[in-house]
């Protein structure tokens, strides 16, 4: 969203409006602050080989469904990095952490959150479809770089399960949590106890030995 806001600053009308609001406070904004998501920083600035070298507790044995979140990718011509429908950065990252990324259609779909407060049953049906899709493709857990997707997939998973009429038991990690786990941080440090869906079953899947 901040990337798109920057792009809108190229419109002279928008810029005049922003100038008008900021000038009385003695502030100026030209839309030049570079916006870059953590996933992009990890993959592009730190890089897959450097990350791989830092892994202390490889996530081997753990099948993870990457769930990108719409606004990280689309509109892809404006976001200007990954394909809007066939990205691979997150899977590359999971692979570097030792986890096994799962291929499923829902990974680039919407989580339903934007209409959670408009029509909860539809929002939950959408969330439920993506979780069920990951589950059907063998995922032990999902991981998302988007905190709103996390609310929809984790905090509202009960509702999602009811909406699609089938049991769902899918731990959902935040992006920094999977990175943290592989780099050796403890579940306590990562706040895993604050999830609504317990993450222990996913942690129990990790079979690779820790490196020292």
């Amino acid at each position, binding site marked *: 969203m901040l990337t798109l806001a920057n792009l809108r600053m190229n419109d002279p009308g928008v810029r005049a*409006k922003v100038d*008008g*609001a*900021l000038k*009385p*406070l003695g502030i100026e904004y030209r839309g030049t602050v570079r916006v870059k998501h953590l996933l992009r920083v990890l993959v592009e600035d730190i890089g897959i080989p450097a990350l791989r070298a830092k892994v202390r507790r490889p996530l081997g044995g753990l099948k993870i469904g990457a769930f990108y979140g*719409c*606004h990280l990718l*689309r*509109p*892809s011509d404006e976001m200007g990095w990954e394909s*809007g*429908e*066939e990205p691979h950065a997150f899977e590359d990252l999971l692979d570097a952490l030792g986890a096994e990324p799962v291929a499923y*259609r829902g990974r*680039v*779909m*919407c989580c*339903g959150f*934007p*209409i959670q*407060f*408009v*029509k909860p049953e*539809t929002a939950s*049906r*959408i969330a439920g*479809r993506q979780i069920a899709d990951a589950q059907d493709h063998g995922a032990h857990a999902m991981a998302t770089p988007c905190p709103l997707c996390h609310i929809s997939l984790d*905090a*509202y998973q*009960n*509702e999602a399960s009811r909406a699609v009429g089938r049991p769902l038991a899918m731990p959902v990690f935040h992006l920094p949590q999977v990175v943290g786990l592989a780099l050796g941080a403890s579940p306590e440090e990562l706040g895993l*106890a*604050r*999830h*609504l869906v317990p993450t222990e079953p996913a942690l129990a899947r990790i079979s690779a030995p820790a490196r020292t």
Partner: protein
Amino acid sequence: MAAGAISVPLEVYRFDPAHDPAPRYDRYTVELEPHVPVLSALLKVRAEIDPTLTLRYSCRSAICGSCALQINSKSRLACETPVGPEIERHGRIVVEPMRNQPVLRDLVVDQGPFWHQYDRIDPHLRPDPAHPMPVDAPTSMSPEQVERFKETPRCIACAACFSACPAVEADPTFPGPMALAKLYRFVVDPRDGTTQDRLVRIQTEGLWLCLRCHLCTEACPKDVRPSERIRDLKEMAIAVQGATERGSRHAVGFKENIRVAGTLNETRLVRQTDGVVGMVGQLGQGLRIWRKKPELLHRPKPIQGQAEVDQIYEALDDAKGGP
């Protein structure tokens, strides 16, 4: 094999609802140069391997909008999607009918649901009866007026957006990206006399079910950018009617909410959207979340510089000519 040709393995959805118990995928391999479109690959299969393969197409030039399909899960025009990049990325090409419309046979769908949604919200020119359009002279528009809807007339009604849309998939009351983009076109058309009515009506006819996922904009072969036109409709609807629906209350509530402390008070936002009564309905859910995330119960402290945030809001509201 022709010079430069590559081997193109296809997996094609086959289903005749009248005879087949379930759909199946038939595999064919054809030799084609990488720039050749998927449609040509399918026509080659039909001409040389299986004459029963059923598909819909006409112009082969991305004008008629007949050949939209799912190509490796993406909703695309088969006539302008080359085989080369698909093979490079996936090693094969899975071809399926469009989503969200029932399959008649193989790759041909019944577009009924798509056109039903279109008709339902009336995206046609409705001049103001008080100012009828001249019958014997052209109606002129300024370049600035045309600029406001320059994208939408490009639409060829191929339904790729309808196929790609997760809101269409999950809720039959959502009109879909194309219908809303077309509606936008007549809302900003200076010849239309029903702009206000349209904006009021669409608020309860599904406008707020758009997820802002931009999958339609990604799928659209003509860069109509339906998701952005839907955003414009939402802004205009709020300007005309204020925050009357859950969707608009949430949007306006968000804006007002940040003004208070310079940061989001999530519990307050739920109240602004749902009202106190609506909140009681979500109490069970709320308790489960609050137990794990108790900080949500605390009113956030105003950020440093909150007064400046307030000033910025005031300046922007003044610029609009009112709160």
